[in-house]
């Protein structure tokens, strides 16, 4: 089974999980999160500046988010729903190891 193969790879490669980040239609390369100034709040004037600090990025830009649904990576509630997928269509697996969280949701609180 293909995914079991990936799972085995994932287990042997635990130190390098893949990260899904907010993506922009015009910025889908590796690198820090591209900040978008669209309102005082989002630009950090009124809060959350650390979320826009590239130092707080947890990895590389390697996935995309459906354009237009949630432009602001820290505000899921700013849209009805938001879906994250890998841009190359790659699937992600249930690692099937109780010691490994299959999904990690990270935030700077």
């Amino acid at each position: 089974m293909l995914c079991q193969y990936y799972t085995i790879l994932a287990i042997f490669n635990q130190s390098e999980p893949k990260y899904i980040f907010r993506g922009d239609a015009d910025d889908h390369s590796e690198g820090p999160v591209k900040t978008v100034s669209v309102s005082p709040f989002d630009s950090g004037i009124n809060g959350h500046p650390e979320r826009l600090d590239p130092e707080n990025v947890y990895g590389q830009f390697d996935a995309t988010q459906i354009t237009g649904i949630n432009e602001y990576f820290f505000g899921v509630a700013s849209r009805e729903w938001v879906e994250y997928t890998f841009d190359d269509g790659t699937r992600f697996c249930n690692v099937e190891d109780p010691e490994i969280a299959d999904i990690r949701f990270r935030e700077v609180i």
Partner: protein
Amino acid sequence: MGSCHAEGVLVFLTDAVVDLGAGPVAYTGNDGGFGYFVGIAGNNEAIDGFSEAQKEAIRDGFASDFGVVGRVFYNNETELDPSPNSTRATTLFYLPDEVVYAAGVLLVDITGYLANYDPEAGNSGTYFTPGGSLFTYTGKTTDISDLLMGDKVLYTSSPSIGRNTDGFDLDAIEVYK
């Protein structure tokens, strides 16, 4: 800075493949119209501020609404970065065993719902409810008063109104592929 009340999202998998005992097959259901329901992800207030019984009751309530009562879920954990001055928090989320893989993660914000369960925040007065459209959950009313009545109305603002609502904050999702 920090969250003063529970925040959370319903978590669905899109294009999920499951193994119900006869080998991997595409999940043919469509829980709530979103995909395969795998539980609720929340901030530290939602995870640590609720009792296990409360969390299970909330999650199982949605599972019942989606018609997946028999699904075996795992409980989530919150992990705070021990580094000095770090405010990073991680929700450790475990998929039901029957899930083999999926293509994506779909999140529906239910902060308005969870906040009303927050034992510290109480039932009113602390959840910021700016103007905006409300998302209709399984055909139920979208009257904003329901946010304070415990009905499963999911909150979201319209794109034209303040982008940062007082909902679930997400900075990254980490998965294995």
